[in-house]
């Protein structure tokens, strides 16, 4: 995406950023305070894309006005014609106004390629990385007959289509056949309005002329460099940038009020998940760590990962906590949800409660029992979206690899890039994680859903400002990362979780170290134990972790001891010997007391909290 030319990062003093979500528009004020960048005020208002308002800028102005009232800084022009820029005085205007948007269903793409696990997958990765929802992915080997593919393209009304296929100089016939299929379907745009549907061709560059002849007359065809120019390498940048450009030119320009919004903004408006992906990559790069991020919303769950510098994003379009909550039930099954509910409950009643949340998506848990149910469902939504992410985040297929005899006999799928033992940080976002009444609830939801291995830090996005910071990073990376560290992330703590099968009746792990108060720690843990210790973010301690059974692995191999420096957070340090995967008894009589013990250990509900360094659960 083209960088704005009007912004000079060296003179920047204040930024107003909005995210126009499908239900609410969230505005934050970012200011330079005593030489440091801080997020100072926030406001929100209902999004106004739909009737009766049909103008997104009304919601933006309402949210900005709330920030103005709270901060005492005048932000909205008197005639309501926009945000006051540049800053006139410390109490009037901001230097820059920026925005992201996912209103109106976000950016919806159909992708196509020749081979499903190769060019179609590269196209999918480019689309997801740009922040799009992939409605369908077509390939010659996707097990659908051509007329079925054509019918499907006709039914879908995407914002644009991304077509890949063939390495440069590779297959011509198959790529052209896909284009002929698309041309026969005569796809139409979602928003209509007499515009031709944008089709981006990012495949074998030698068939560009054929594409022009076949797709040119029925679409607004854009040809960009190949997403898979050679078998061994992807080049997703040009396709991703073109998606962003077309998002601005076509999708945004046609959505109600966006013409005005684009004129107000000092940087191109980004799709919300695209902006979140940007900030995740920035953090991973700057700290040199592997990061897993999640944004669990009402309708969808986005998962981001950066492992060894490779970024992947997936969207689980029908896993969410309100609109899609019944789909979590359908996909996970009732027993999977029930296994996290720490009290007995009637199954029919639980199904009806979940159904009622789907049809009344804006309601919130009022009783503790309702909260516990909602958090049980969240664990499954997070877990299922993570499984989808791991399946997608794999090394490039089709690349010749050296295989041993053992590999040839092992019938396994492609190994995922998401290696939990190598993961350094998990960042959670979305209402159920960011707004859980106690931070310990968020921490255990993520520990249960992701089952981190070895030593992993956990954090949540305090008030959902990652999208704002993502777009800010395109104009001022330093400001974005400073605010991310200081105001966006709420550090929960560290989880230590060894893996490997152990004998349950013997001690498994010895933990030794020096506590923040200077006293010595020496404790032994058995399989199944979960214990939490208070440790603040600014307290760092060194621990010696010694397996007491030679199958136990902390990352250095079975039976090998490790020494680690760990920091805490608002929750603390969790030592989790529940095993991987976390297996629970099927009978409620055994399961419920176990869950209650974990709840108590983490201090999640009711009286009580963290155990002390001596004793505990």
């Amino acid at each position, binding site marked *: 995406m083209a960088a704005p030319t009007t912004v000079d990062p060296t003179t920047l003093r204040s930024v107003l950023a909005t995210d126009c979500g*499908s239900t609410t528009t969230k505005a934050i004020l970012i200011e330079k305070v005593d030489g440091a960048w801080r997020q100072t005020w926030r406001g*929100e*208002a*209902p999004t106004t894309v*739909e*009737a*009766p*308002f049909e103008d997104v800028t009304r919601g933006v102005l*309402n949210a900005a006005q*709330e920030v103005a009232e709270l901060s005492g800084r005048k932000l909205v022009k008197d005639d309501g014609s926009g945000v006051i820029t540049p800053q006139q005085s410390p109490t009037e205007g901001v230097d820059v106004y920026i925005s992201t948007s996912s*209103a*109106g*269903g976000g950016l919806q793409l159909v992708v196509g390629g020749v081979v499903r696990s190769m060019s179609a997958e590269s196209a999918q990765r480019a689309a997801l990385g740009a922040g799009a929802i992939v409605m369908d992915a077509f390939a010659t080997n996707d097990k659908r007959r*051509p*007329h079925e593919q*054509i*019918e499907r393209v006709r039914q879908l009304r995407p914002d644009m289509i991304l077509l890949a296929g063939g390495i440069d100089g590779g297959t011509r*016939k198959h790529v*052209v*056949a896909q284009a*002929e299929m698309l*041309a*026969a*379907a*005569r796809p*139409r745009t979602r928003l209509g309005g007499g515009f031709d549907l944008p089709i981006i061709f990012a495949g074998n560059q030698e068939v560009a002329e054929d594409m022009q002849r076949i797709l040119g007359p029925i679409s607004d065809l854009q040809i960009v460099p190949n997403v898979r120019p050679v078998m061994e390498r992807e080049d997703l940048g040009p396709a991703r940038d073109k998606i962003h450009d077309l998002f601005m030119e076509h999708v945004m320009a046609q959505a109600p009020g966006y013409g005005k919004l684009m004129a107000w903004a000092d940087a191109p408006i980004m799709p919300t998940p695209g902006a979140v992906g940007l900030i995740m990559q920035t953090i991973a790069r700057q700290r040199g760590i592997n990061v897993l991020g999640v944004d669990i919303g009402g*309708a969808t769950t986005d998962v981001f990962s950066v492992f060894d510098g490779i970024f992947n994003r997936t969207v689980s379009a*029908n896993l969410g906590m309100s*609109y*899609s909550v*019944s*789909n*979590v*039930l*359908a*996909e996970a099954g009732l027993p999977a949800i029930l296994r996290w509910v720490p009290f007995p409950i009637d199954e*029919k*009643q639980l*199904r*009806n*409660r*979940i*159904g*009622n949340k*789907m*049809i*009344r*998506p*804006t*309601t*919130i*848990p*009022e*009783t*503790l*029992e*309702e*909260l516990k149910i909602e958090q049980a469902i969240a664990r499954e939504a997070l877990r299922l979206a993570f499984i989808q992410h791991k399946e997608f985040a794999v090394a490039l297929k089709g690349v010749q690899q050296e295989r041993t005899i053992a590999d040839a006999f092992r019938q396994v799928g492609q190994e995922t890039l998401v290696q939990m033992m190598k993961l350094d940080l998990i960042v959670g976002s979305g209402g159920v994680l960011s707004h859980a*009444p*106690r931070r310990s609830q968020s921490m255990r939801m993520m520990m249960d859903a992701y089952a981190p291995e070895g030593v992993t830090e956990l954090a949540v996005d305090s008030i959902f400002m990652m999208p704002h910071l993502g777009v800010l990073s395109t104009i001022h990376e330093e400001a974005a990362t400073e605010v991310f560290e200081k105001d966006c992330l709420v550090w929960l703590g560290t989880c230590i979780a060894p893996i490997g099968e152990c004998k349950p009746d013997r001690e498994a792990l010895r933990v030794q170290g020096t506590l923040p108060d200077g006293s010595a720690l020496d404790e032994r843990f058995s399989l199944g134990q979960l214990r939490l210790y208070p440790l603040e973010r600014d307290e760092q301690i060194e621990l010696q972790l010694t397996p007491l059974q030679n199958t136990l692995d902390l990352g250095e191999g079975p039976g090998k001891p490790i020494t680690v420096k760990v920091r805490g957070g608002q929750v603390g340090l969790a030592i989790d010997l529940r095993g991987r995967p976390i297996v629970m008894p099927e009978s409620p009589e055994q399961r419920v007391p176990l869950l209650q013990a974990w709840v108590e250990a983490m201090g999640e509900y009711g009286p009580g909290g963290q155990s002390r360094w001596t004793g505990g659960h």
Partner: protein
Amino acid sequence: MAAIFTPGLKVQDHTILQKDRRLPMRGEVAVKVGDTVRSDQVIARTELPGKVYPVNVANQLGVDPGQLMPYMLKKVGDRVEEGEIIARTPGFFGFFKAESKAIVTGTIESISIVTGQVIYQAMPVPVEVDAYINGTVVEVHEGEGCVVQAAATLVQGIFGLGGEVQAPLAMLATHPDQLIEESDIGPQHRGQILIGGSFVTIGALRRAVEHGVAGLVTGGFDYDEIKELLGYEVGVAITGGEKLGLSLIVTEGFGRIPMAPATFALLQKRAGRRASINGATQIRAGVIRPEVVVTYDDEAVPTEKVTPPEPKGLSIGDTVRGIRTPWFGRIGTVVSLPVEPVVLETESKARVMEVEFRDGADGQPERAMLPRSNVETIEREPASAPTAGVGR
């Protein structure tokens, strides 16, 4: 903080209602502004393009795609009959001829000399859109459809299954908390839209389908019976295309919940009249609620399109419905709207309202503080200007 409340479902005895009726793609509109239309009258029609079938003719003939054209007997745009020969090779001395026959009746859409594919397009499929309600055409969308306006009773439900149906309304329940069972339904209910009470069993619903009942309106229904009924779970509330045999409208939610007395009374009042109902539901951006519409056909309706007023916020005295446990399905009145957020049992902070429920345990009114997001207003009377419910 911005005003947080859930816009309510409309339960209105008399409102000016508009229905936007559109074709799935451009076509011909058969009415003009000012026309009086009947609910079953066709207001617009078009033809959807027929299905498209690609066939690799070069492979069938055993020739190179680049050599295909000389063997084609038909060209792009030609009409073909199923089984008709469209391409043929001469063979050797009249032997070993290869042919390709049309697999559908339609037209040749394209012939590719790169892939050797011939794409057929089957005959177009005619589509018509009716007026759905009796009323007056107040706006025409050129080539797309029109807006029909009428004075009507409007009851919106929260969830539905099945599409549009027009039939007479008939009371099946005698009170709002009546349970409807299999034995309650018989052949006398054929072709009617039946009004139930708090709950309808799966057996009763199946019986209704057997007897050709057109629609069923109920307070509650079991969520897991939907899977029983459809064979799949409804994971996201986007419905309307189900082939159920009838349209189902749930007014309150899942479980056994008495129909709101105002809703029941209103449907009772209009029983015997012909109604238009639609089970289509979309609880996402661009929300669509299932509905029951009964028009006042003898009444003069404005021929100008009425502008819908902006939704009004919550006020003291409004009738509201609890929409989350532990108050789910109970109807009450707003008593106060405290400004400061309150800490709930969950330890979350939320803005609340004080509601007086008239149906307390021992018949006494009961007061409680509820999060504002856990109540829904019941929009009974139109705002100062006539309210217009804009449909699809």
